[in-house]
């Protein structure tokens, strides 16, 4: 198990390096220009100087290696400086956003809390309602509960979040005026009253995203339960005289959880990716919104760093899911 983990970890390093090169080349080849949004009233000579100031006049490989150095050397040093109050990174150029000229990592650190509270919470809620629904739907297959669950998850699957989001805003924001349509990222929870405000402003985005997440996971849970419910060992358990509760929740559920856990683990990186559309609709300015505005304005360092961090997370959670497999199912051993 340990050698397997170590081997996978070592393979991850070149994988990530290749991913970073591919991202960089894709961004390089993509049409668009960081100065594309500069108004036409700015003369071309001025634009040329602005381009040079952003470092865009050097060759692509120079910029790529500079980014590698900044990401793998300067940024960790800055983190060390920040944590231990040292000055190792003094005077070194960090990864700077074209749009705001702020170090990219600072922006990311500023935005992670918003994304984690809204997108993370909706993932938690989604998972915690999806599992019981999936279990019961499978146990009572084709009952009215199962039919209703199927209907709702089909809605959650097929209706895009930009639609459900706007519908919710019109119902709860405009007509009923229960919830604000614009999320206040500066709101601080200090007492009961401000906590309620926070709950109200999170209600709609969390609802939209939970519906979407729950729809997906409950389907996985249901089908995995159905696979197991018809197995011989279930009949044996019942024949032994075990109660239905023990049969379903201990014997069947544990076996059914294996594929579902993988799906849930692989879904975790997407939390950090934010929810691009939902964040835009409710103005929860988290990582997703940052990514999309950076893409629009061709803020290469920002897009590059964010996508690369997502790549790291995906590779890591893949590894975690593989290791979890071995722990959950003793039949799977990598040695």
């Amino acid at each position, binding site marked *: 198990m340990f050698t397997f983990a170590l081997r996978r970890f070592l393979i991850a390093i070149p994988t990530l390096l290749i991913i970073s090169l591919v991202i960089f080349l894709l961004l390089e080849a993509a*049409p*668009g*220009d960081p*100065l*594309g*949004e*500069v*108004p*036409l*009233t*700015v*003369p*071309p*000579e*001025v*634009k*040329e*100087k*602005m*381009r*040079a*100031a*952003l470092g865009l006049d050097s060759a692509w490989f120079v910029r790529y290696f500079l980014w590698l150095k900044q990401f793998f050397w300067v940024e960790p040093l800055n983190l060390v400086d920040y944590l231990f109050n040292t000055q190792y990174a003094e005077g070194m*150029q960090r990864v*700077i*956003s074209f*749009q*705001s*000229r*702020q*170090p990219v990592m*600072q*922006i990311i650190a*500023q*935005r992670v809390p918003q994304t984690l509270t809204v997108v993370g919470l909706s993932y938690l809620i989604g998972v915690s309602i999806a599992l019981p629904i999936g279990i019961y739907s499978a146990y009572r297959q084709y009952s009215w509960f199962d039919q209703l669950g199927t209907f709702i998850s089909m809605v959650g699957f097929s209706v895009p979040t930009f639609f459900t989001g706007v519908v919710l*805003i019109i119902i709860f*924001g*405009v007509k009923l*005026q229960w919830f*604000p*349509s*614009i999320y*206040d*990222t*500066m709101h601080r929870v200090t007492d009961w009253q401000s906590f309620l405000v926070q709950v109200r402003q999170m209600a709609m985005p969390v609802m939209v995203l939970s519906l979407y997440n729950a729809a997906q996971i409950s389907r996985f849970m249901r089908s995995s339960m159905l696979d197991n419910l018809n197995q011989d060992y279930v009949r044996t358990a019942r024949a032994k005289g075990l109660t239905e509760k023990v049969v379903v929740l201990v014997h069947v559920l544990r076996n059914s959880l294996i594929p579902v856990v993988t799906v849930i683990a692989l879904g975790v990186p997407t939390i950090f990716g934010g929810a691009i559309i939902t*964040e*835009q*609709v409710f*103005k929860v*300015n988290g990582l997703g*919104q*940052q990514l999309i*505005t950076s893409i*629009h*304005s*061709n803020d290469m360092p920002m897009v590059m760093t964010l996508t690369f961090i997502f790549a790291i997370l995906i590779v890591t959670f893949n590894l975690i899911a593989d290791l979890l497999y071995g722990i959950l199912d003793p039949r799977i051993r990598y040695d």
Partner: protein
Amino acid sequence: MKLKTALLGAVATLAFAPAAFAERGTDGEVKIIYWQAVSTLNPYLSSGTKDVEAASLVIEPLAGFNEKGEVIARLVTEVPTVENGGVSADLTSITWRIKPGLLWSDGTPVTANDAVFTANYCMDPAGGCAQLARYEGIKTVEALDDLTVKITYNEPRPNPYTAFVGATSPLLQAAQFANCMGAAASSCTDQNFAPIGTGPFRVTEFRTNDVVQMEANPNYRDPAKPAFATVTVKGGGEAAAAARAVMETGEYDYAWNTQISPEVQGQMEAGGKGEFIYAFGTLVERIEMNMTDPSPSLPEGERATVAHPHPILSDIRVRRALSMAIDRDLLVEIGYGAAGRATCNLVPAPEMFASDNTDCLVQDVEGAKALLEEAGWKVGADGVREKDGMRLKLLYQTSVNAVRQDFQSIIKQWWNDIGVEVELKAIDGSVYFGGDAGSPDTFQKFYADVEMYANNFDGTDPEPYLAQYTCDKAPSPATQWQGENVNRYCDPAYDALVVELGRTGEISKRAELARRMNDMLTKDTMTIVPLVDRGRLSARSLSLGGVVLNTWDSELWNVSDWYRVK
């Protein structure tokens, strides 16, 4: 008599009460939404309107523009002119006198050195200053004494109100930005996000691309202003959502640039919480005619260059017919509603510069057909006109934008009606306006027969704008496809007028020249076919008073006068 006096006194007190008792910071919070979120508060590092305007709450130029486009003093005692001796008689220098006793928000005095520093900061070659054009042609900027700044230009400058005028060239505090010159400009995150200024507000918290919070500047020059204690400028979402937050839910007081379809505007106004406000500037949506042949059959390097005149559009009768077939009022109704008006001018404002050219406003389909007949284009078997075996077929490109695609399909219909076959193309804005010489789809390269976009000029003086259409400004392979004269229009007579305009100082003479040049480009040659004069459209809450929309300067130019309607 006594009673009458007493009553009059009481009435007078009541009438003047709001003014007399107005005090700084008594009206609480004002919430503004910019759906394009603010990225930085240093306009010298970003030319985005959102950034320039948010910064205008904090940092100010020496002088600005009012809603009529007139120059008004902000930090100076008066606007220098030739009459009051502030501008030298030979038009080569301008002298500004800063108001005595003016303080930065940190309590230190504003001096002429701050202005000198700001100019040097922007003119530093390594800084990549986005507003360099405002400081172009400057020989020296010097502080004559603590409160006097003198700018000397290389040559006579008929319009000296560029540096330190308008929200795009505000004063920075020398002490704060001293270590941010040149290449260090971008590492000064703290300074760029919270500049110290003289404006009505100062920054308390800044989160890039998200939200800015500000509070009233305790050292603001008018002790009774601003009425609001704090400002929040929130970003994110899109125009319709921003408008909704003001017009329907009432969560915000002011929404910037709420360009949404006239139909939706009407629905939102029914909400009764706010109103749309609009004002007109110089932004004109137009169709540009390509004077050169963009045919892909030509070798790269010769394609769309002056070496090959356009086989169809070189004939002015075709260009005129294309313009005549368009019903501009209908376009306005569909695309912009009250925030647009039909125009035939490239320079629609200020009033004195606007030509009385209105010939194009009436659609004339029959006239257009007759003109094409006269030009030798006969209707072929499938309804498309032909001449010498060549079909009258045009490629019509623009950027991806809902209104533009509507315009494209309507105009295509009109052109089909007069026997012109039209192929439409929509290009992503970041590519189209990106200026990448390697891309075939930029508006400068113009690998199409006609193209549509909007452009305007900075400030109130159209000289640099009109000077874009000289022969030498045509984009070509030799210039890496840079240059503003995208039509490749070339007329020595026009070039001569540009030179003359650059030498003319008298304002009425300048206006006459500008009108003549406008007519040459539009009604005389139909090189540029203006469609719609696009106004600024924003939304304000009915409870927000004092808003005056200004298209010549920052929209938030008079935020110190805003108040809560009680």
